Structure formats: C-alpha cells, structure tokens
C-alpha cells in the first residue's frame, strides 16, 4: 500500500479546497473522483468529471479573473482589532492569517480586465469563513469609494458565511455601511457587479452581495439568508433539493446569470464593454 498516502487525505465537508497539498492527485469533494492536480488546477479547481466548483482562495480567484500582473492591492494596511475582547478572537485571527497568508478575509485593489480598469474585491472563505467584521466592511466601503472617486466599475466576489460574530454589533453595522456605499455607487451611476461564489450567506447576502447592478453566481454555490442549520424551518415543510443554492436564487429572480467558472471572466469583460457608461455621441 505504498500509494495509499496519496489518497489518505479525506475531504472534510466545509474545508475549502485551497488546502489541497501540492501532491500529484487529489479527490473531488463531491463525486470523489481521483483527479490529477495538474488537470484540476488547469481547470480552475472545477472537477473535470462532475463539474463541481471547489472553493478558490482570494489570490487564485484574482489570478483567473484579471489581466496578468495588473492587480494592485488597496488598504492592506487596515487590520483587525478585538474591540469586544471576544473569547479566543485574537487566536482565531492569528490562525487565519497563518493558514491563508492573508491580512484579512477580503482583498481589494485595482486591476485590469481585458485592458479595462476596475476596482476588485475578493473574499476568502479560508479566513474565518470569509466573515465580515470591521476590516472587511471598511475595505469594501473604501473600494467602493475608490470606484466612485475614479469612476471605475466595482466588482466583488463574495465567499462568506456572513457577519463576524466576534465583533458583535460592529459587524452588523458593516452591513449598513457597505450597503450605504453601494447606494452611493448607484446614485452616481458607477457599475457594481457581484459574483456570488460558494458560500454567500447571512449578513453578507443580506447586504452588499444582493445590491449589485448585475449579480452573477457560480453553479452549485450555497447562497441564502440563514444556513439550513440556523434557519427556523417549519416542521413538515419539504425543502427543495436546491434550497439555498445559486440555482434556487436564480429561480426566484435574485441572480442574473449562473455561469461556470471559466465563463465568468469573459462575462465580466463583456459587461464592462456594454456598460461603459459613455454617451453614444462620445463614443
């Protein structure tokens, strides 16, 4: 059983695939198919057999989304404190930083997509479930304000369980803060695109993630208000199989298009072209 080491890594339900070791093979978290890491990576972590979209880290997402080398981070110097002195919070932050090598659960910055300048923000589920505390909210609001000031489209990829419990009310207020900033974009006619990826729930889905002028989503992503676990479901109500997925949300009019991972960059590029905002005479 020499090779058993290759297969010994058991997929754990909610662990993101970002931790897959740089081995030779890996396993699809849904269909259990053994995949060559090389093929898997080349396919942007979409299972080559069943099409399951595994989670991407923030930098993996940026790599497949923007023009090579064009990403310039913004506001990386804004960092979390522990305003409530919440049990174990500093340790959790430290662990998240070590595991993801990120400074917080979202990275924001400027970039080009097909030579068009944008402001982009990408959450990383690996960092405390992508949860939104003061720093995530502040980076989003600042990104939006940057887009406002420079009239650049704002593109946010969500991947978050919701508001960060460890910052209590301050996290709740980030919902209002980011939504108010989205309101400014709307008032000023600056394009705002949201791409919902697995998962987008709770306070993030109930704030800026629902406010894009255009909302795209990846197939099979968990998207909903309260997780199946949290929701107070009526006894006896049969939940549809696709409850709280991007497909469910699209069926109910909450999502414009569900697109496979590799079609998202071209779709954004096209939207940037279609919504460039210049009057016909200026073209």
């Amino acid at each position: 059983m020499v090779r058993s080491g290759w297969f010994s890594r058991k997929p754990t339900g909610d662990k993101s695939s970002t931790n897959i070791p740089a081995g030779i093979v890996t396993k699809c978290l849904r269909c259990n198919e053994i995949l060559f890491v090389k093929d898997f990576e080349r396919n942007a972590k979409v299972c080559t057999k069943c099409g399951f979209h595994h989670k991407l880290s923030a930098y993996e997402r940026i790599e497949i989304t923007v023009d090579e080398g064009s990403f310039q981070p913004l506001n990386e110097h804004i960092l979390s404190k522990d305003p409530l002195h919440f049990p174990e919070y500093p340790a959790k932050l430290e662990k998240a930083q070590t595991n993801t090598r990120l400074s917080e659960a979202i990275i924001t910055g400027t970039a080009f997509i097909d030579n068009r300048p944008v402001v982009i923000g990408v959450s990383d589920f690996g960092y405390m479930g992508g949860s939104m505390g003061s720093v995530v909210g502040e980076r989003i609001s600042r990104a939006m304000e940057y887009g406002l000031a420079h009239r650049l489209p704002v593109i946010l990829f969500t991947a978050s369980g919701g508001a960060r419990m460890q910052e209590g009310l301050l996290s709740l207020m980030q919902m209002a803060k980011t939504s108010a900033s989205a309101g400014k974009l709307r008032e000023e006619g600056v394009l705002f695109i949201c791409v919902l990826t697995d998962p987008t729930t709770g306070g993030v889905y109930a704030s800026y993630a629902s406010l894009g002028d255009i909302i795209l989503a990846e197939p099979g992503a968990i998207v909903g208000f309260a997780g199946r676990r949290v929701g107070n479901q009526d006894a006896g109500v049969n939940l549809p199989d696709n409850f709280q997925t991007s497909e469910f949300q699209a069926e109910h009019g909450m999502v414009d298009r569900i697109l496979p991972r590799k079609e998202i960059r071209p779709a954004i590029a096209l939207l940037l072209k279609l919504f460039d905002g210049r009057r016909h005479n200026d073209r």
Partner: protein
Amino acid sequence: MIGDVFDFEKPIAEVENLIRELKSPQRHEEALREGIDLSAKIAELEEELHQVMVRVYKNLSPWEKTQIARHKDRPYSLDCIRLIFDDFFELNGDRLAANDEAIVGGPALLENRPVMVIGQQKGRDIKERQRRNFGSAHAEGFRKALRLAQLAERFHMPLITFVDTAGAAADLHAEELGVSEAIAHNLREFSLLKTPIIVTIIGEGGSGGALGLAVGDHVSMLEHSIYSVISPEGCAAILWHDKSRASEAAKSLCLTASNALALGVIDDILPEPLGGAHRDPVTMAETIKTSLLTSLNKLDSFPSIDILIETRYQRLRRMGEYAERTPCEENGNDG
C-alpha cells in the same frame, strides 16, 4: 402580579407578595379588629421594595436584560404608537405579493405633526403571535416598510421606526421571496431617504432583521433593550455547541444599550421606569415621545436634506474598529 417571574426578579416578587398580603381585605379587617396599624409596616416594605428594585435593575447582567427585552408584557410597537401618537392610520401591503403583519406602519400625528411610523410587532396571544410570525418579518414586511418610507419621503414626513424582533424570518417562504434582498435593499434605500429617520430599539434588536428598519439619523435604545449580530443562543451554539451557555454568550456579544453606546452604534439610551418598561408603559411612552421630539428638533435644524443624508452616511462610515498600520511599518513587514 405581572407576567412570569425571572430568577433575578425573585427578591422583588417576595417583597411584593408581602405587601400584597398586608394589603389584602382579610388582613385589613384583622388589623382593624385588633387595632393594629399596618400602614407603617406597608410603607416600610414599600421602601424596601424600592431598594430591592434599584439594586436588581441597576445591576442586570446582559442575559437578564435579554430576558427583559423579550418580556411578554413589554410595550410593543403598537403600544408605543397608541401611547405616543394621535390619528395613527395603518397602511397595509407591499404592492408586490402580500401583507406581512410582522411589520406595522402608517401615518400618524406626533404633537400635531404628520409623521410616518413603522414598527415590528410581535403579538400578545398565541393567535396574534402566529399571525405576526412572532415579529419576524419576511421580505414582504421589509418591502412594505420601504414602500411606507418612500411615501413619507414624497410627502416630507419624518420617518420614525420601532425595532423589536428576534430576527427576520428564515424559512422557505422567506428565501423564496428574497428576504436577504429585501433587507439589503432597505439598508441602501434608508441610507438615501430624503427625510429624517429616527430609530428606537424598544425590545429585541435581532441581527439583520432589526437592521432592516434601523438605518437612520438618530438611533436610541431603551435601557433594557438589546441589539446584537446574533442571538445569545445562536452564538453559544456556534461557539460552544451548547445553547445553555447563552448567558455567557450574551456577555461576550456586548449586546446591551450601554455597550452599543460605547461602540458608537447608537446615539443615546432612554431610561426605563424602575423595574422595566413593562411595569409602566405610560411613563415609558412619555420618555420615548420626549426623545422623539428632541431628535426631530435637532434633525429639523439641518441646513439641507443633502447635508442630512451625507451626515447619515458619515455616521455609518464611522462604524467599526480597526487598526491602521502606518505605511512605514507596512513596508517593513512586507519586505
């Protein structure tokens, strides 16, 4: 006796029972027969009752406050509306799908001035609670609220909201009609609404469902109300897989009015009558009314509606606590 007795209220209930006993007709007759004057004893006990109540109610733990905020006799939105305003005219329906009775609202007069009032309503008896989904609104409720808010805007009526919910509905129907979108939509539109907004958290300020009515220019909390990102039970379940540790979680979450004030989330705390709002709703309503009039006066004095809205935005922009590493350190660490 009012409502159920919480553990922390037992010392109060003991003295109250003694007083009630001494004031009973039998005791009165007995005393008359034997020529004893009970009034001195009663006065003494009443003084003791006051002392005990002060001691208990000035030192409530966050979990005890949570219980008071959820007290079944606590004044609800419709009680506040009835006691504070005149000529309330309830309006119904979101003009899209349904009428959600977890949120009530309509125009009314505040000291002869037309305003729009919206509040979350829990319901008193089992039937009413079911009808109002225990004050947990679906998308329809938030959309009705937005409809009324925008109606207020068009007629230059200040908007007054009362927040009292454990949270928004989280069932299949809520998801089907897009409760998340409805809340997010309200957060954005309330931040842009061209009329003053005054928010009072009168009981439970539960998470996104509360926030859906709580973006405003002036936000007050009643002394024993709570405001939280998650219920203490939910927090305990996630952190320790043990709902019974809710009292610990309540402490960690910093959900009391004084916590919210210290965190810069609210503007002031409205003192409750001794023993909680449920013991004296009329006095509570007077306090709220005075506060509403003061806030309205302050907001009326803004030079323009644009400045009011920008001030509202800046108020939200200040929310949160974070460290800003200086660029010099940043270079050092990144290198």
